[in-house]
């Protein structure tokens, strides 16, 4: 069932909270990959609050849906989501990046509950997700594997090696997202190493492509439901997003790939997130 208006309201509240959590953790940690964490908020919120079959009280439950955050530097966005879902205490994240902390910038699946794969070196997540999807199939289990890629990350050959495998093995139990925020570290993706025609590349590799507004719950929801029911081949959802989304002074700014915040910027950032949430509630999508 696609998201209802009522659900969308709730999801926006969750998204607003997650953005504020990201701001707080970035402040506590002294710096984090904030831009790319903010661009994938709606994808994570929708998956974890509507679609994923999980049990935070039983993080290793064998029938759970799996998530592989292939763009592992998004840990600062993923960790607070897991905390809010109840995998661990949100206050634990005051230790993010600190000495002896279980939370490095890139999350460790052996130390952080709810994390299905240790990622951070780009280009590793999709191959592992393909393996998980194959594992489910071999063992006749019906859970799904979700994977979120960065667009810059799609420069890596291993992503396309995994894409070939996913389509060769007709993995319809794997749902891949690309956070298409069009920026990487050294600049815009099309200037550093062009990806376009991006959708055509995925099609040529045997994927069914859905392109959506990655900040629209209704569009994301329709794409996820399509992907869940599609049985011809693997689906990739290219989510067009804005890096730094929600914080006006960070949006589309290359330099906010990684950064720190002082108390003044924290206030400004949160005010901006509030304004965004208000607008989003009115638009209801």
């Amino acid at each position, binding site marked *: 069932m696609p998201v209802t208006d009522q659900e969308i309201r709730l999801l926006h509240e969750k998204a607003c909270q997650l953005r504020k959590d990201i701001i707080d953790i970035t402040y506590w940690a002294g710096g984090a990959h904030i831009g790319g964490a903010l661009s994938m908020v709606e994808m994570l919120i929708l998956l974890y609050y509507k679609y994923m079959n999980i049990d935070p009280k039983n993080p290793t439950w064998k029938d759970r849906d799996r998530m592989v955050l292939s763009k*592992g530097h998004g840990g600062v966005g993923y960790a607070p989501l897991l905390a809010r879902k109840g995998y661990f205490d949100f206050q634990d994240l005051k230790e993010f990046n*600190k*000495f002896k902390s279980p939370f*490095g*910038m890139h999350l460790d699946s052996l130390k952080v509950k709810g994390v299905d794969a240790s990622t951070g070196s*780009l280009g590793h997540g999709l191959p592992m997700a393909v393996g998980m999807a194959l594992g489910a199939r071999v063992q006749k289990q019906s859970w799904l594997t979700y994977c979120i890629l960065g667009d810059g990350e799609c420069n890596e*050959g291993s992503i396309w090696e995994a894409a070939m495998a996913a389509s060769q093995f007709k993995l319809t139990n794997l749902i891949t997202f690309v956070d298409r925020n069009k920026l990487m*570290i050294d600049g815009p993706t099309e200037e550093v*190493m062009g990806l376009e025609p991006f959708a055509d590349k995925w099609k040529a590799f045997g994927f069914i492509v859905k392109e959506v507004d990655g900040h629209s719950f209704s569009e994301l929801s329709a794409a996820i439901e399509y992907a869940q029911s599609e049985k011809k081949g693997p689906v990739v959802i290219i989510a067009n997003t804005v890096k730094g989304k929600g914080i006006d002074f960070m949006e589309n700014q290359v330099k906010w790939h990684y950064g720190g915040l002082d108390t003044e910027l924290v206030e400004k950032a949160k005010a901006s997130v509030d304004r965004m949430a208000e607008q989003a509630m009115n638009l209801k999508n």
Partner: protein
Amino acid sequence: MTEGLTWTVYDADTMTQAEIYGEVLCRLGEENPKIVGLSADLANSTKIGKFGKKFPDRFFNVGIAEQNLFGVSAGLAKTGLIPFVSTMAAFTAMRGVEQVRTDICYQNLNCKIIATHAGTSFGSAGTTHHCTEDLAIMRSFANMTVIAPADGIETAKAVKACVDYPGPVYIRIGRGFEPKFYENEDYDFQIGKAIEVNEGTDITLICCGVTVLQAAEAAKFLKENDGLSVRVLNMHTIKPLDEEAVLAAVTDTRRIITFEDHTVLGGLGSAVADVIAASGKGCAFVKVGIPDCYCIVGYPEDLCSHYKLDTDGIIDKVREVMNMDFEEDDDWEDEV
């Protein structure tokens, strides 16, 4: 071509190793048109971007694609150019490693790899971004030269020296929080030649990278407080290793400890151990580094003290090894 090139690296107090590298490479680029630069979406972080801005026609950012990065570098080197290639150490020594070994080292190509964020210098990032294996990996490749400069000044020296040094060279540097050790460039740096930064006859500390400063400080402290005469070697070149310096340490001091921001398996300590073992001489020997585990999370200075690579840790280790009375052993035969 670069001989006689003289300049001082100004601002060594405020510049990181990588910034100094970027600056030096620009100067070398002016002198030597054969130098080209490459990175993989880390032009800014590794500071090779400075060279890229100055020589846009001689610089290639291949995107986040490290295997391609080293393959392309090999191709460029085949045409007679001298590629300087920079990304983080983890993505050099691991992601791109078969290209480094088979395309670059096997074909003995003139590629100069300057890898940043090495060891535990990007400690807060977690294991994916730690690189405590690179010395072991790189050292195992035939034709490869492996260097771990003590600080920014020595990075400048190493980068300059590697241009005319034939074949592939791997230079590992930190993330940018490494304190300086050398005051200026006024000392003799030769690839493959250890530098005695402190004279001593009781024990020898063999170090590379960030541990050189810590050991030198420890030596000073131990002289004043324990009356110990501690030799400190800056073994900036891990391969080819200065075997003579190691053998002299065995003969002169009979006690050796190695300190490295790297796993104790296969790096500087192991290289030194090989030489000691082959010498057939008795020597108390301990390797200090990251034990056989994935390093914990934290800032480099905290990790350094956690793994006993800071001055206090080194002092404790020296006292411990000075108390090993191997010569009292009944089975001991002094062959020195």
